[in-house]
Every structure is written in C-alpha cells, then in structure tokens.
C-alpha cells in the first residue's frame, strides 16, 4: 500500500507515482471539451457559484482519466462548497493544473501560490456568505446576501485563470477525444443550468418579502438606545430602550403607517398609525381586538389604561398573546387619543424575555408632543 497525501485524498492531488514513478500521461483517454471563458463566466454568475462542484467534477475526472485514479471525484466536487475542504480542493486544483501543463510540456499556471491564495480568499468570502444565509438574524442574512453577490462576482476571476490554462492545454492536444462537442454546452450542462436557474427563480420568488425586508433594513437608519423617534406628523415620540432598532420607510410594513421600525430580534417590528378623523380609544381598541382575533384566533388579552403623566391624556396599553398553536406571538399596542387625532403604536414581538421586555418598553415609551392637538392625515 502506498502512502498518500491530502491532495490524493481529495482526488485532485498528483498521484504519488507521479513524483516517485513518473509515468507519461495517457493522452488517448477522452477529455471533457474545452469551455469558452464567457460561457464559464455565465455559468458561474447565473448559478451564483453553484456550478463550481460540477466544474471541479469535470476537472477531477479529466485528471483522473489521464492519470491514475484517485478517490471518487464526487468528494472534491462536494468539498468545494465547504470551508477548509474547499480551500484545499482549490489549492490542489491549481497545483494539478500547473503540473498538468508542466508535465505535459504544455505550459503551466503562472504564480501558482498567488492564484491559489486569490482563489481561497474568494472562496472564503463565498463560504462565509453561504453560512450567513442560514443564520437567524435578519441583519446578518442581509449582509450575507451582499457578501454572496460580491463573492459570486469575484468567483469567475480565479476560476477563469485555471480554465484558461486548461483550455490552452486541451487545444494543444493532437487528435483529442472529447466527451462532447467543444465550446458548446453539453446537454447535461444545459439541464443543470436550467435546473439551477429554476431553483434560483423559486428561491427568489419565495423570498421576495425577505429580500425586500433585508434590503429595507440595510437602507434603514440604525438607532441606538435612548434615541427618540417620531413620525412624519410630529405628534408623538417614542424612546428606544435598547440598541439594534432600524427605522425604515413608513410604509414598509403596512400602507398608511406613520413610522416603521425593525427590532433587534428576528421578527420584531414596531409601527405606528395615525388617525385624524376623531376616532376614540374605545373605537380603535375594539377594532384592533377584532382584527387580532381574526388573524390570531383565540387570544389572551390584557388591557390597562392610564394617563400620560405630562398631558393627562389616557393611553391604552394592550397585550395580545396568541394562544393557538402556530400563532403564538405577542403584540403590544399603545393607543392614545387627543382631541383631534389618535396614535396607535403596534409592536409585534418575538424573541426572549429580554427582547419582549425591551419591545414592551418601547411601545410604552409613547408620549405626545406638547401643544400639538391636530394632525395632517398620513
């Protein structure tokens, strides 16, 4: 039994025999045809890098077909999507392509280590973005999405460096046998591309709201604890109890809102409605209770009314807790009515106790601006 290196283990490293027992390349085996660089670029970009495993698979199969067989090419193919493993696969691929050219006397990859490091850096960004997409925090997900776009935009560059060498090498082969017609998409590639595009389309469709939310969060204004926010009408103030709130466009959640904020906890939102038509607290609270019931089913409702200390205006603090399985969420609603207007602050709260307490404090921080008794319709 011969000793193998990690490159062998991934199936991309040169066979040990190459170093100790130099054996000529088997140039008669069929090759995957060369791929035009623009087509390769399109594949990478459209598939958001998902074609990398296929590309590594083809590369590994080419190398293994013309040298001794290593591990199953599927392993490095899958490994390219993983941190560390993917970086080793990449480094191995760079070295093997360089070796392929050199050993065959067909030229080598320039500056192997630089190419390897460049590729590893781009892959690292790509991997980080993929991991970030699965984290729960909206903001991280948003940043991961941005990183993914950057990584996908950069991915073609290191890959094209290798592909260009591979193409150059294959074009120097005399009477090569191709597995499919050179410089054209193979039917399998087209199928793969179609599948990936369909998948991406579906993901995009399914996450439109998420993506727009993410985008909105990224465009919104991040606020700090103690900061005071107010809506377009300037009728009221809310004081942030903790960091991590992001003020977004007023209509972000619902049309007609006067203020909209994302909370620090995933799924926590706060938004404000204004009514300038003389609606009373009783009317609005009754309406809200009905709406909550229709959307959340059975509810546990607690309502308490007190007076705002400065203005002696009554304010209703209501907590609606969904009791139905699958609809267990909490809403805090503060409603205050002045002579000519009504302000309703709704906080949809998720997260742990601390998040709940902070969001409740935020809703309860509602104060009316002194001296304002009328409003313009929002």
């Amino acid at each position: 039994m011969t000793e193998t290196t990690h490159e062998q283990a991934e199936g991309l490293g040169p066979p040990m025999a190459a170093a100790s027992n130099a054996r000529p390349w088997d140039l008669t085996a069929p090759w995957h045809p060369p791929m035009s660089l623009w087509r390769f670029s399109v594949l990478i970009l459209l598939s958001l890098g998902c074609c990398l495993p296929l590309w590594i698979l083809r590369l590994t199969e080419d190398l293994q077909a013309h040298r001794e067989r290593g591990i199953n090419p599927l392993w490095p193919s899958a490994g390219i999507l993983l941190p560390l493993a993917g970086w080793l696969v990449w480094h191995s691929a760079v070295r093997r392509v360089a070796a392929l050219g050199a050993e065959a006397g067909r030229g080598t990859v320039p500056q192997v280590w630089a190419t390897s490091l460049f590729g590893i850096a781009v892959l690292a960004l790509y991997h980080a973005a993929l991991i970030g997409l699965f984290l729960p925090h909206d903001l991280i997900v948003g940043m991961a999405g941005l990183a993914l776009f950057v990584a996908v935009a950069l991915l073609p560059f290191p890959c094209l460096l290798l592909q260009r060498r591979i193409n150059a090498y294959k074009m120097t082969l005399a009477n090569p046998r191709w597995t499919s017609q050179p410089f054209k998409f193979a039917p399998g590639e087209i199928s793969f591309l179609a599948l990936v595009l369909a998948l991406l389309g579906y993901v995009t469709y399914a996450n439109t709201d998420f993506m727009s939310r993410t985008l909105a969060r990224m465009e919104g204004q991040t606020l700090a604890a103690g900061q005071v926010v107010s809506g377009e009408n300037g009728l009221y103030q809310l004081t942030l109890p903790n960091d991590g709130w992001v003020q977004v466009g007023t209509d972000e959640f619902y049309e007609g809102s006067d203020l909209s904020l994302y909370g620090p906890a995933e799924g926590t939102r706060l938004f404000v409605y204004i009514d300038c038509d003389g609606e009373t607290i009783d009317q609005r609270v009754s309406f809200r209770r009905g709406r909550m019931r229709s959307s959340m089913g059975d509810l546990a409702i607690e309502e308490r009314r007190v007076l705002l200390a400065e203005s002696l205006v009554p304010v209703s603090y209501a907590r609606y807790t969904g009791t139905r399985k699958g609809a267990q969420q909490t809403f805090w609603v503060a409603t205050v009515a002045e002579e000519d207007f009504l302000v309703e602050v709704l906080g949809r709260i998720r997260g742990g106790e601390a998040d709940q307490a902070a969001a409740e404090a935020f809703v309860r921080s509602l104060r009316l601006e002194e001296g304002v008794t009328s409003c313009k319709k929002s």
Partner: protein
Amino acid sequence: MQKILTRLLVAWLLLLVGGSAVAAAKPTPLKLNGQPVGFAFWGPEQRVYSYDDVALAAERRALFEEEGVEYLYGLYRVELHFRADGDVEEHELAVRHLLSRAAVNNHGNDEHWVDAFAETATIEQAYVLLPDGERVETDPNTLLVKADNDDDIFTDNFEIVVPFAGLRPGAATVLAVRTRHKSDSYPLPFSRTFTPQVMIPIERFEMRMTWDEGVTPPAWNTDFEKLDCRNTEPRQVDCQAEQIEPHPKDPDIVYSDTLPTLVVGEATTWPALARRMSSLVQTAYSEKQELKRDLEKLLEGATSPQERLARIHGFVSQEIRYLGLEHGLGGIIPRPTRLTFSRRFGDCKDKTTLFVDLARRAGFDAYPVLTSSNRKNLEKLLIPAAGYFDHMVACVRLPGVNGGEGRELCFDLTDPYSSSDTLSDWVQGAVRLKLTEATTAPDRLPGDRFTWALEVRTDFQLNADGSLDQKRTRRYGRANAAWLRGRLQPRSRKDRMKWLREDFEDDHYKGVELKSIDYQGIDDSASQAVITSTAHMAESFDPEDFRNFQSWESQLGSEVRWFRTENETHDYSFAGLTFRGETHYRLPETHRLVHEGAQIDFNSEFGSFRRRYRLQDRELVVVTEIDLPRGTIAAERIPSFNRFLDHVGDNARITFDVAVSTGL
C-alpha cells in the same frame, strides 16, 4: 293805609316765596304703596353737572365702542364722613355712560339699597345728560321703593329704583345719594366694602374718608394695586384710580373672594368683634331651668354623645322651621332660645343659638360661629369688620380620646336635609369668626374631603333571550344625600315617585321597563338616603350574535362632567367627589367571558379613577372607584381638570367580550 297794605302784601309775597324755597329745599319722602316712608327721600341739590362735565374723552369713547362696551361708569365717587356723634355720612355719586341701544334698554334704571332700620337715604341728583347738552330730570313720582322680602325671610332692606327718562344711546345718567348711617341703631362697628373694579369699565374711581376731630381714625385697607390712597389732610384720606379695566368674568367664581376691594370701617379688632357679637348672642340664652324638661325629653334614650348631638341637631334643623324676621335688631341679635323653641321658627342665628343652648345643657362644648355664604378667601378680610359675615352656624368641640386634641363638628341649622355629620356644602370652607373668648382671628369652616358621595350597586342578569334584568341600589352620602332630600322632602309621596321615575328615565334608554322604584332615608336625615329600583330591558343584545356587551356606570358620565368649569382666569373651588360603583353581570348559560375589558388607573393631581374586574362563578364583577378630593384648581390647570373629568366620563362605559360556551 295803602302803604301798610302794600307792605303787608310784599311781606306776604316774600313769605310765600321764601316758604316755597324752604319747602323746596326740604327732602320729600319717597312713597311705598302710596305711603311716605321715613328712610328714603327726594332732595335735589342745586348743583348739577352738564354733559361736558362728565363726557368721555374722544379716544376713550372710540376705544370702548371698538371693544363693544355697552356701558360703563364714567365716575364713581364716594365720600364717607365719620361724625363725632358716631353716625357716618356717605355721599355716593355714580355717572354712567350708556353707549348702545342695548345698554339703554337693559340698564336704563339705576338703584340704591337702603337699610330702613339703620340708614336714611336721600336722592340728591338723578337725571340724564344728553350729548347735545340737554338735561332730562327724573320725575320723583316715578321713583320706586321695593321691599327685599322673600317667602321665608323679611328684612328692613329696600331698593330704591331710579327710572331715568329721555335716555338715548350715548347718554349719561347721574345719580347722587346721600346716606346717613345711624350708629345708635346698629350695635356693631360700621364697615363698608367698596369694589373699585367691577365687570364693566370704570373711568374714574374716587373715595374720600374724613372724620371729625376727636373721632378715632377709621380703619381701611385695599388689595387693589391700582388704587392710590393717601392722607391729603390731617383727617382726610383720598383714594383714586383711573381707567379701570373690567374684571374678567368667569362662571364659577365667588365675586366676594375675587374682586378687588376697598374696605373701610370703624377701627376694631377681631377679638373685640368676637366678644361684642358674643355678648349680643349671650342675651338670647334661656335661664337655667328653662328648656330643661324639653331637652330631657328630646334626649330620652340617647346614650352616646354622638346620638345626643344628632338628636339636638335633628330637632333644631328639622323641627324648627326657617323663618327670618330680620327687622330692626332682629337682623343682628338672636331671639331668646325659649321663644324660638316655642315658636318653632327662627333664622340662622335663632336656630344656632337654640342649638348651642341645648348642646351646652347636654354637656357639649358648643359655640356660635359667624360665617359668610359667599366668602372663602381669608385674605379678603382686609380689616376686622362684621360686614363680611351674613350667616351663623354652630360648632361643637368633641373631646379627644385619651387626652387627644379632639375634633370639631360644625352644623348649619338652617339646612334640614344634611345629616348631623355633614356640614352643608355651601358653607364648607367658608370664612368664619368663632364667637368665643379665645378667638383671635377668623379662620375657615372645615370642609369634607369629598362633599359629594355616591355608591351604586347594580346587578344585571343577562338572559339567553337577549333581555336584561336590572336591580340597582344607589346610596347617597354627604351633600349628595342632602341634595336628594332637598329634591324629595318637600314633595308628596305621589310627586316623589313621579320624580324618581323621571330621574330613572333620564338615566336609561327608552324602552327600559321600570318594574319598581322606591326610596329610603328621605324624611330622616339621620339615616342613609337610598334609591332602589328594578327594571327589565327587552332586546338588550342579539343572542344569536352575542360577542360583546356594553353598559354604562350609573350616571357617572354626567355626574362627573357636571363638575366641569368654564373658568378662564380665576381659580376654581372644587368641592370633592367620591364614587363607588359595583356592577355584577351574570352571564347566560350559553356564553362565557373571553375578555373582561380594560383595567383603568387614571391618577392625577386632581384625584384617581380606578376600575377592576373579578370573575366569580358565572358573574363578572366590575368595581369602579373615583376619588376626586376637595381642592382649589388653579386657573392654568382648569383645562387639564376638565379633560380629566371628560376622560373619567368617557370611561363610564363598561364593555366585555363573550363567546359561546364550549361544549354546547
């Protein structure tokens, strides 16, 4: 002979003319019911004013017209002279400008009040001056003298009404009256309160005090900053102010407590005044053996001090009817208690003195107290004077437990409706002067923390057919009880029931079927005033779609809002309100409670409003508590006060959600 006859003729003519002149100068008595009176006279002065003398400056008139002033005082002048014989002469001159037709129609008369017992008044000038220079004299035959009597109070006060003739917009009226205050008729030191600022503009206010040599200089004081007073002569003080703006009007103010005043009177001290009045009251108490048997009978079976006091209070306040015979010294000195007891009538001081007499005999430390029906501000008692007080009540100091300080209870014996532990709301907090040896200064009568008290217990049975059965008990406390007794006591049983039914209908929707209604504690102020009722309300809710129920806490919304004030510039004196409502809702078997409604905790500087819920068996119990204590609401806080009351009223509604009971 002819010469002699000629001389005789000349002499006769001279006598005739001279006599006529003398007759003209002598004041003519005014007439009441066609008969001349001895206290009011017509005695025109030779000196008269012309329009030019009293005309307003052109720019001032333009200003008044621009501001829409209907009428004003161009000049108000008073001269007081304290004579060596103790009498006081007062000369009052009022020049009014009536700028509009409305002013002519509404204020074409002027009037002057005179106390027939202690004063004589002479109209010296009464005419109209027109801008064209014409002067229209008042016909003395048109002067009216009106007695100031009511159904149960008769006084020596008369109103002399002067109907000015020839009035047109722009005219000025002139009325000058000379009054003699007779010291031998009035057993208390003379005092007068003038108001240099009133509700209409006064262009010029003048006041002159003079006194004869040897007379103690009169006391005087003012709280009107604009009034400039100074000693202009050794025995003369002159005060004057010009262009005095109208005092701001407000609906809920006691003008005696707010209008700036100038008080003038014979110099005295509060202790001296208390002693003097006390000595006058002292004459009314009966001899030792008198009333003894009557008192024993009255207190028969009463064991505790509270019960004994309540018996005496109940007797004097309810069985001695109010009748004020205020003629002569009867307006100042109480009648003998024995007489009041036997007559079974008397005025405030008669009843008070009888109460004090009986209470003292029963072993209580009771004493009479002078008070005022329209003064609560001690700072307005600018000098020691009796003139501030127009009423008398009684107070009792009860001994403290274990040597403690004890407590004072005060009683308005003219109020037959309040219980013995409640001082009439209209004198609570009023200024007073205790008529005791220890009195050094006036203070204020005690005031309840909550003058108005109401407890309501309501039971609703919500029936499965959508109908409702209601049983309600309203318990009236403190001044509320007196208010209710005041409404019902004077009526017959039939009229009382009619009043109760109408009151119920005011508080309920049409279609509510009143099953029964009754009252308790109306005729006896010692027991609690209660109204009970039962009613049936068909189709109160839709049993097929019954998800929410609403009702209103009995009369709370209107009761609370009744205490709103529209005052803008003056503080508001709020008497205090406490309300306890307990409403029981028994749900139909078909439904269960899913949401009970909002807890309420309204706390403010004005008081609190609280609502809580509890579910017992199938019964939702809603408890509402309102505590708004007595206090003075500063003018700048009145909008907040009103809004607080509105918020309380708005939340008189009780609402809860129900759902169909599971398993049915």
